[in-house]
């Protein structure tokens, strides 16, 4: 079995070397949408080929086709010039393609060794010694260090990603697909991944790196293909990229993606609309953690009316638990929450809502709505039993329907009607309904958890505008996000959470890169930097 070291000495020509994948005129349709539209590309070994596009541009579908999860409706794939059909994940793996998906495809209760051998025939035994030996090589060549007997679910997300990369290398894959691999990493972690990708391609692999972040495409890619609404909008080869600066490249990419100049989507800094009065106070808040969920400790902050307080941090460091504790959904073991001077620590979710504290969850379909219920019912889900929609416990369907229609109009929700089950709507439209629901009545503080996650760029823009408008109107906004650009564009101050604690609260002073690096270090738990919390 050739190991990675041997690969280094193989002399591979770009066009005919093992691992050239050709995509020829591939089209894939889903009900109501053309996800991939007549795309033709070639992936060469020795290159990091970036597939760039906003959410909904067709990247994930293309990945699905390359990974064997879907088959194209038109067009075909080729491996090393030969036409191939990848009808299942096994076929894809056998063709030498390994895919690391955006959401971890590891079994959390199995050990690292078991996850590395997943998919092997059931009658065999895991070849422990062989794998241990190869892991030593991989450690040497690619800095992949993994404890074989640890339970996968207990490792960090970065380590889990390394397991998936190691698995690809153990299979001697020729092509490694990384789908949105940096979404769970700190800026430093992303840098490490970039370096690792370069090592991998130098050893002869082809790496396909999918992202929607423009800067990453330039920094880590040798070749960039831009996808727009399912079609190939343009390609930038290695020579072209080498000849440009980062800014020039970003401009060109933006032009390809949106046909306009970068200025329109720049991460412009928003003017602060913060007022004098403090609208939300959190003092020493703490919640209980357990095996699955982080507990938070010693959370103290103050939010002014009209202010946007951004919350940065890697996913899973207590941000969601903080939001739930503030909303009343999670029991609190210590501390106080005060809304406009009133202590609401003991208040229920419904009571807090009525007093003006609203919470827009990131989990739109699993938590925020009931997919099978019509939009109309979803708009009043948090007000069940309340007049005017219910009188003496009896439903007033007409009032609910009218309320829903008003909301649909006001927030431009694309839907056949208010009786459509909300699960049928696109992510962006569901978000609009939820936003409309949280803003109805007298809202004073809105807690947003990853509000633009998974939306296409138009909706992201609109959502950010709305958030800014809400703050302008005098509401306090608590904005949790994993998108640092978004936080830096919108926030007055940025709070960084790591390990369930606040690592620091910094003013968004427009110092760009320097600020970004500081925040990145805090996200990794390195710097304890506490400023005045007022």
């Amino acid at each position, binding site marked *: 079995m050739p190991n990675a070291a041997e690969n280094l000495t193989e002399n591979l020509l770009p066009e005919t070397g093992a691992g050239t994948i050709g995509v020829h005129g591939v089209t894939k349709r889903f*009900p109501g949408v053309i996800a991939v539209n007549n795309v033709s590309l070639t992936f060469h070994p020795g290159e990091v080929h970036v597939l760039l596009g906003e959410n909904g541009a067709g990247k994930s579908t293309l990945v699905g086709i390359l990974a064997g999860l879907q088959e194209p409706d038109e067009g075909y794939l080729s491996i090393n010039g030969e036409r191939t059909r990848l009808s299942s994940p096994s076929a894809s793996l056998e063709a030498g393609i390994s895919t690391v998906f955006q959401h971890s495809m590891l079994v959390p209760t199995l050990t690292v060794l078991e996850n590395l051998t997943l998919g092997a025939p059931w009658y065999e035994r895991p070849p422990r010694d062989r794998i241990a030996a190869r892991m030593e090589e991989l450690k040497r060549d690619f800095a992949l260090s993994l404890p074989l007997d640890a339970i996968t679910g207990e490792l960090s997300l970065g380590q889990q990603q390394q397991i998936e990369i190691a698995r690809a290398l153990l299979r001697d894959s020729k092509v490694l697909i990384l789908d949105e691999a940096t979404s769970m990493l700190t800026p430093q972690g992303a840098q490490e991944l970039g370096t690792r990708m370069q090592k991998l391609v130098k050893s002869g692999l082809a790496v396909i790196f999918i992202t929607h972040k423009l800067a990453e495409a330039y920094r880590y890619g040798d070749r960039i293909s831009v996808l727009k609404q399912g079609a190939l909008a343009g390609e930038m080869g290695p020579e072209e990229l080498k000849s440009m600066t980062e800014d020039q490249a970003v401009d060109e990419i933006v032009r390809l993606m949106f046909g306009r100049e970068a200025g329109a989507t720049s991460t412009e800094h928003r003017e602060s609309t913060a007022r004098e009065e403090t609208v939300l106070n959190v003092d020493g808040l703490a919640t209980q953690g357990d095996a699955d969920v982080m507990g938070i400790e010693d959370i103290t902050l103050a939010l002014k009316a009209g202010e946007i307080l951004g919350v940065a941090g890697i996913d899973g460091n207590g941000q969601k638990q903080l939001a739930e504790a503030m909303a009343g959904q999670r029991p609190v073991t210590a501390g106080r929450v005060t809304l406009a001077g009133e202590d609401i620590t003991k208040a229920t979710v419904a009571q807090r809502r009525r007093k003006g504290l609203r919470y827009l*969850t990131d989990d739109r379909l699993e938590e925020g709505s009931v997919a099978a*219920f*019509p939009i109309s019912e979803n708009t009043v889900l948090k007000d069940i039993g309340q007049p005017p929609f219910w009188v003496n416990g009896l*439903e007033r369907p007409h009032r609910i329907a009218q309320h829903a229609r008003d909301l649909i109009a006001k927030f431009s929700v694309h839907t056949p*009607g208010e009786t459509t089950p909300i699960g049928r709507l696109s992510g962006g439209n569901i978000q609009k309904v939820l936003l409309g629901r949280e803003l109805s009545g007298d809202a004073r503080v809105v807690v947003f958890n990853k509000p633009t996650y998974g939306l296409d760029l138009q909706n992201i823009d609109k959502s950010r505008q709305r958030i800014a408008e809400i703050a302008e109107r005098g509401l306090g906004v608590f904005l949790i996000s994993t998108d640092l650009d978004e936080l830096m564009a919108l926030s007055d101050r940025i709070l960084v959470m790591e390990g369930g604690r606040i690592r620091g609260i910094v003013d968004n002073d427009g110092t760009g890169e320097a600020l970004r690096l500081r925040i990145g270090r805090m996200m990794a738990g390195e710097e304890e930097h506490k400023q005045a919390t007022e």
Partner: protein
Amino acid sequence: MSMEEDMMSGSADTEARAADSATPTAERSAFQRILTVTVGPIIAAFILSAIVLMLVGVNPLTYYGYILERSLFSGLGLQQTATRMAPLLFLCASLIIAFRAGIWNLGTDGQFLLGAVASAATAPLLVGVLPGWAVLLVGFVLAALVGAVWSIIPALLKAYQGVNEIITTLMMSFLGVLLASTLVKLVFRDPSTTVPQTRTLPVADRLPRLFDTSISSGLIWGLIAVVAVHLMMTRTAFGLRLRMVGANPSAATHAGLSVPLLTMATFALSAGLAGVSGASEILGVAGNVRANWDPAYGLMVIPLVFLARFDGYGAIVLVFFYSALMIGSESAARRLGVPQDFTLLLVASLLICLGLGEYIDHRKRRKER
């Protein structure tokens, strides 16, 4: 493990049947869909069971014909069918609440029997002490309480410990059936007869008959129960809360509902209605509980409720036909020598054919979209 109104487990596209009927798909008419999903499976099930009948040497046409004639086309049969509907309707009400709230209450048999024993033990003793209507009322209320109490352990385990209720309710059911028999034999035994049974409630003190017929008025109460449950689930705030817990417990918590309390309420209501079902059989028809009596209506009603997609009115129609089937097959057991257990087979094949029909419909709908 969520409860879907159809049998496609966790299907990828979330379809709500109500909305579908409002906006029918263009290419396949509503008629075609009903054919695939309701009528087709029923016919297929009857054919499948007919094959088994032929295998054991019984002419299916004779059998089906006899059943129809005996239960629907004769005056007496029709009345018996109507009377039999009462306990089944209460059970439908019980299961509609449970299933719509996402709770698998498989313990209705035990709750039914204990409710029956509770009413059978107390009613005869209260005759003469209380006015007639009060005797019956006490009997029903007690049955409801006993049924509800019998579900407390599974309810608590589910609500606060997350223990799967399928197993706990099943075990309590077995326990309940045995307990009921023990109570009849040892505690509530009628001293005046040799046959082990409870004291008999005189016919005059049972639920009155309707007009001139022999149909028990329990039928009316059963109908009221199903309709009331249906309206509650679809038109009230409480019903919406229960449905939310059934459809998406995380969303329910997010919306500020107390899932554990609502779970307890669901168990109490569902088990209580099952107890009332038992009482209706005693106070309306039988008058006493014999030892080792277990008609096991509970599990049989489950397929009917699924067939009706948890809709109250649909359930009433199906219960009517199922009662006819039961009355007919009971008689056929004596006359034609085909044991009544055949109905088990028929209902089971109905369930399976329904599942297949759902699947075919599901596939066709995805191709269209």
